[in-house]
């Protein structure tokens, strides 16, 4: 082993991951805002006390969970279907795979704008179609009840290809003779899916779940561009709230507190999911 | 003496792989290191090449202590079990890479590579990739690479194990000829006793990292110093007779023969192999293997006999040979 070869990478990682995290923890116990000319002044945990009674923070936390969980679950379900479809043989399979991959490769900013335009009232295609059929406008992005789901749809559109690809890779590791042996035993297609495909895909599904949940929990670009967090902060994610606190309200101390709190929530939730998955494995007969 | 191993010991995580190994190999001599898998034979080779560093002991090549010399500077020619040809380079490039690194002129490189290719009868393959060659051809390229290194010692790690049985027999004399061509000591690692006996001037039998016996194939066959060596050398395997008064007797199948006034035995299985026939017998000594002339008619029950002077005697406790 040549540790010196590892050094540049470790230094860079420490600089970009290590230092910021330590700095956030430190800043979260200081006031650093316009009031203090952005100079950090210790405040005996005032940020944390404020956080606990900040209803916007908790609303955003619930929204972030709601967003992450719904989009990840939808993505997994759609991705499994897409992967099974793409694993079959058909004409132009290569082209179809490339097309499927496109949404993933596009920058979030571009696709967020596209979806914002699609959901636009009154000029977007959805509203236009409603008008064409003389139906009532549903005002998607300005409705506090459904705007968040529009962001979920956009997120699902963008990131499903990634999971589909991982699951497809998993599907390709399952040897064909397993299915043949199962058929000889008299199993039908659905039970083959349940007894062979799902259990063997399990690690890939969990991997996709893990990756995507972490990303979805940090969602920023999509929300900032599609809705700006509105209407009435109903689509605001924790990272967007932290961003607004830092760059709009210039409150670095409180922004850091939100960031650290987000880390903690994420870790707790990950552990919770981990335990839940282990508990429910047997119930779902996924072994 | 051109290779000397002195008190070599090597361990992985507190587990001794090699214990206090002493071996000498002369110039031009081929020594086979024989043993079952995990006996430390490949590790010995890797320690000589410098790919592993022994915990104790010294390695001398041409009477120079190379124990602390880097493998890059050791000048050993090694043929790996997988041949380890560089898959992205043509055969010619595989062979000239080492020469290039040593700063040999391009013209000289080409000259040496083309001469070794013709010796190996690989001329027409120089532009092919290793993946386009057969197993036997790859083995020859690996050997050519070792020869071009102009090494002080050759190390061959199971060079035939990836070839089929027929090709192996074909290549044996060729390998022998090419290896001697360098007039350097050759270490040949194998788990196949037949190959070891065919290739080597002397054989070192290793067991659990210990040198069990070292000697010519004939010495090992005739005077095995332990039950382990006796069982490892010679096919079909030697018959170990039941313990009697702290003594274990063993008799080779080829020394047992049918004889009217002998021990009664019953045939339970027979293999007619053309060159000989191997008969599995049930007798008062337990199950015995007998190897005899293929033309002899063997009834289903018979009497067998062997000359007591052909018996090997071992101590039942130490499993070592007792002089007889």
């Amino acid at each position, binding site marked *: 082993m040549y540790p010196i070869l590892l050094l540049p990478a470790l230094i*860079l990682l420490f600089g970009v991951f290590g230092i910021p995290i330590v700095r956030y923890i430190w800043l979260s116990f200081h006031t650093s805002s316009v009031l203090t000319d952005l100079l950090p002044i210790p405040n005996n945990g005032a940020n944390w006390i404020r956080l606990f009674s900040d209803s916007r923070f908790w609303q955003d936390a619930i929204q972030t969970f709601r967003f992450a969980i719904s989009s990840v679950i939808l993505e997994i379900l759609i991705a499994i279907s897409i992967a099974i479809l793409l694993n079959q043989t058909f004409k132009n399979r290569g082209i179809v795979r490339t097309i499927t991959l496109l949404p993933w490769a596009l920058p979030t900013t571009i696709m967020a704008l596209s979806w914002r335009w699609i959901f636009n009232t009154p000029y977007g295609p959805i509203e236009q179609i409603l008008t064409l059929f003389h139906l009532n406008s549903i005002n998607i992005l300005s409705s506090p009840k459904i705007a968040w789901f529009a962001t979920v749809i956009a997120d699902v559109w963008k990131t499903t290809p990634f999971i589909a690809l991982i699951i497809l890779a998993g599907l390709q590791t399952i040897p064909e003779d397993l299915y043949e042996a199962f058929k000889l035993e008299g199993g039908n297609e659905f039970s083959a899916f349940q007894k062979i495909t799902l259990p063997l895909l399990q690690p890939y599904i969990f991997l996709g779940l893990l990756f995507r949940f972490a990303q979805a929990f940090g969602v920023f670009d999509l929300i900032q561009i599609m809705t700006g967090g509105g209407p009435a902060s109903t689509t605001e994610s924790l990272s967007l709230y932290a961003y607004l606190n830092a760059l709009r309200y210039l409150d670095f101390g409180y922004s850091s507190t939100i960031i650290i709190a987000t880390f903690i929530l994420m870790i707790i939730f990950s552990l919770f999911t981990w335990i839940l998955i282990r508990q429910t494995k047997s119930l779902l007969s996924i072994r | 003496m051109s290779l000397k191993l002195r008190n070599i010991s090597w361990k992985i995580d507190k587990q001794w792989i090699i214990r206090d190994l002493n071996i000498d190999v002369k110039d031009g001599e081929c020594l086979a290191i024989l043993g079952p898998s995990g006996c430390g034979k490949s590790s010995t080779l890797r320690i000589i090449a410098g790919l592993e560093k022994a915990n104790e002991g010294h390695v001398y090549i041409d009477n120079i202590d190379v124990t602390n010399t880097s493998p890059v500077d050791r000048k050993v020619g090694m043929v790996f079990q997988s041949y380890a040809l560089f898959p992205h380079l043509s055969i010619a490039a595989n062979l000239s890479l080492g020469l290039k690194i040593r700063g040999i002129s391009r013209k000289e490189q080409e000259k040496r590579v083309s001469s070794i290719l013709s010796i190996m009868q690989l001329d027409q393959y120089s532009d092919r990739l290793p993946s386009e060659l057969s197993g036997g051809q790859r083995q020859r390229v690996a050997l050519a690479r070792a020869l071009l290194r102009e090494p002080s010692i050759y190390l061959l790690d199971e060079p035939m194990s990836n070839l089929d049985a027929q090709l192996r027999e074909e290549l044996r004399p060729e390998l022998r000829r090419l290896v001697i061509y360098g007039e350097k000591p050759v270490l040949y690692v194998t788990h196949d006793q037949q190959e070891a006996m065919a290739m080597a001037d002397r054989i070192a039998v290793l067991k659990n990292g210990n040198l069990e016996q070292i000697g010519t194939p004939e010495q090992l066959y005739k005077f095995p110093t332990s039950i382990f060596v006796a069982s490892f050398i010679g096919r079909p395997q030697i018959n170990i007779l039941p313990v009697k008064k702290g003594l274990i007797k063993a008799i080779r199948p080829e020394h047992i023969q049918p004889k009217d006034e002998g021990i009664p035995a019953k045939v339970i299985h027979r293999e007619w192999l053309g060159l000989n026939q191997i008969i599995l017998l049930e007798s008062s000594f337990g199950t015995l293997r007998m190897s005899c002339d293929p033309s002899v008619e063997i009834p289903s029950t018979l009497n067998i006999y062997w000359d007591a002077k052909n018996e090997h005697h071992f101590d039942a406790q130490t499993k070592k040979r007792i002089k007889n």
Partner: protein
Amino acid sequence: MRKQNNLICLLVLWSLLPFCWQIYTSFSTPESILNPFTYQENRWTLQNYIQILSANPPFWRYLYNSLLVGLTSTAITILIATPAAYSLSKAKQHLSNTLKLLLLAAALFPYVLLFLSLLEIARAIGIANNLFALSIPYSALSMPLAVLLLNSAFSDLPNELEEAAIVEGLGLFQRIRWILIPLIAPAIASTSIIVFLFSWNEYPIALTWISDSKLITLTVAIARIAGSSVYSVPYGAYAAATVLGAIPLILIVLLFQKQIVSGLTQGAIKG
């Protein structure tokens, strides 16, 4: 079979429709944008493209900026990740597993949350508003995944190959140059493309670091064109911008589909 074809069509439509709508909008006159299904006269125009290409700075400038950042970050990442991955593949089992776990955790980390501290650091050492400086966080953020992908490529190489090179007399750097790099070239290619895509698509750090409108990257430029108010957005122009911004990516996906797929799935299978 019929059912399968229908599903494939659905998949293709689902993947392409939002983008097709952008293309359609980008060629529409302002009047037809407002009535996409009914307005008939004076339907098509190139005005939207002309507008963004003749703006100051012209739109291609952002493409150039993104390309520059993308290439430098990819180069830095590969240059640092390759030796690190090699070193990791030679480490003892226990150590390498621990390091790989840490790298995985870093790869999973929602990096968006780092923007504030990174911005502070950039301002403190005076590298905000510097296009090349953006490649430092980009390289660092792609580093965990890059090291993991390359490490799995190195670990897949048979040990005997490198040992054969050692015995042939090749030193460490000669081995890396002549044996290891050529052999893991496919993994380097797919890692490069994934790193490039990340850097091309990155938004929050580019948004906070760069304020000079000549230096902003494509993603920030597009978000700026869209502006902040939903009602004042010049839809035609931003549709044209998204189309132009997407073209390089579509080309990359078309050309390197194999490498992208193998890069993404390698990580999944080995991880």
